[in-house]
């Protein structure tokens, strides 16, 4: 650990650095304040369509089912499906239901939340591998003290009330631990 040194100097610039030559400006008759920064608001409006595979995923999620896209070449299952098997560049062929039980493949404790839907801090953001899936999706871990979350921990989704279900990721409020032995973290490598 370097010693604290409160007299540290900041190195000066080398000499002869190019800068914009001075500009001569016609004299101003008023005391108008010079403009140095402007705001240029811009709003663009789009119609957003998520595509075939995400649409299937979200329609299933509205039925409290998690589905992944199946790679016709390798059998790998991608969740959420984006329509492609990314390693082979081929369309996934249909979907299969995965989970709902799952394992935590990686996580972190978050001390700063964003947006109205963020839970009180600290909370846990995790990569979660549903049983039967080849890769993980992001989710929150709740109903357990944040400092007890572990890689390999078994979890299940907690859904919003049935009357709140929609074609939205937010159907899963969070994931909570279930009483099953942890998955060996070594088996989860390559599934984040």
């Amino acid at each position, binding site marked *: 650990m370097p010693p604290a040194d409160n007299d540290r100097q900041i190195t000066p610039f080398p000499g002869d650095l190019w800068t914009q030559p001075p500009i001569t400006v016609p004299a101003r008759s008023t005391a108008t304040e010079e403009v140095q920064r402007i705001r240029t608001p811009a709003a*663009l409006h789009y119609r957003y369509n998520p595509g075939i595979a995400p649409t299937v995923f979200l329609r299933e999620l509205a039925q409290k089912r998690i589905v992944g896209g199946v790679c016709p070449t390798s059998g790998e299952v991608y969740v959420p499906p984006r329509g492609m098997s*990314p*390693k082979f*560049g081929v369309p996934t062929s249909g979907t299969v239901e995965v989970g709902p039980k799952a394992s935590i493949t990686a996580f972190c404790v978050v001390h700063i939340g964003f947006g109205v839907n963020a839970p009180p801090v600290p909370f846990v953001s995790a990569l979660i591998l549903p049983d039967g899936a080849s890769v993980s999706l992001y989710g929150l871990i709740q109903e357990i003290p944040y400092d007890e979350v572990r890689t390999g921990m078994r979890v299940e989704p907690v859904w919003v009330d049935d009357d709140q279900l929609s074609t939205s990721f937010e159907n899963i409020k969070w994931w909570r631990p279930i009483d099953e032995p942890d998955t060996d973290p070594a088996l989860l490598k390559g599934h984040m």
Partner: protein
Amino acid sequence: MRDVAIVSSAQTAHRRSVDELNEVELIQPVIAAALAGAGVSIGDIDFVCSGSSDYLAGQAFSFVMTLDAVGAWPPIVESHVEMDAAWALYEAWIKIQTGHADSALIFGYSKASPGDLPRVLSRQLDPYYQAPLWPDAVAYAGLQGRAMLDAGIITERDMAEIAHRNRMAAEANPNAQVTGSLSVDDLLAQPYLSDPIRRHDCPPISDGGVAVVLAAGDLARSWSSRPAWIRGIDHRIDGHQIGARDLTVAPSIATAAAKAGVSGRFDIAEVHAPFSFQEPIITSALGLSDDVMVNPSGGALAANPMMAAGLIRLAEVAARISDGSADRGVAHATGGHCLQQNLVCVLEGAS
């Protein structure tokens, strides 16, 4: 310079709106078809380069998502330009010239349908002096059209004839979006969309994409029975401030054409003129004689998928060389407003 050829290409059937597909779903079949056309798979390809723009569909990091359509595993040598994919082909051609690659896959795509394209394109303009005024891209182009008319270089009838010829030619193009045309007289009877521009002078708004396979030397000969050899390729840019430019010319096209070796006889030219009145600016800068067949595909007036329409011009010339219907052609791609940036490529069949 190494001999490099376009050995295969594929396009979407261009449409006004492909709502059901996202961009990766849109482009994957095109990539697969271009690779299949060369009889190869991604593992045979040394370099991948794509062209796209996040602004068109409002999709941040669009190219990151479309990488899933390539099959980047094991990891690939890959790059991306925020330009028309004709420039992605240029980067790939350079890469092959360095000797670090013998083959390349290039693709470009866009979905312009989710946004209001003429408004979106205003975001490309001078952010201090022009973009805050939100000029739409059609009216902006009209400033160039008016300059052509005022200079007496072209008439509104000439513009209608160009639109008519391109759209009639597009009837033979299975990928075209707008085919067929009213008579020139009937076109001239139509109201202005943005005086001096009528609807027929404008390109359609398109969703679509294109993919091309490049290969060098003997590899090209083994992947295609008749490769379309790149004999010269160059790109140049003019100034952005259209008020300081002569809008009736695009000097960057002439410079690029000279550097690319545009001279002598051509069977075919595919030029990227989104607006009717831009075609003569390009053909005169290329110095094309009257007997050259210009835009047998229908050009950008038949389909104009942004970020792909330039590379499509190269693909169209290459396809006609590879099928034996042409021996020598020139292709042109443009970027920006009012033909600001231009790429010119000479392609030949004889090796």
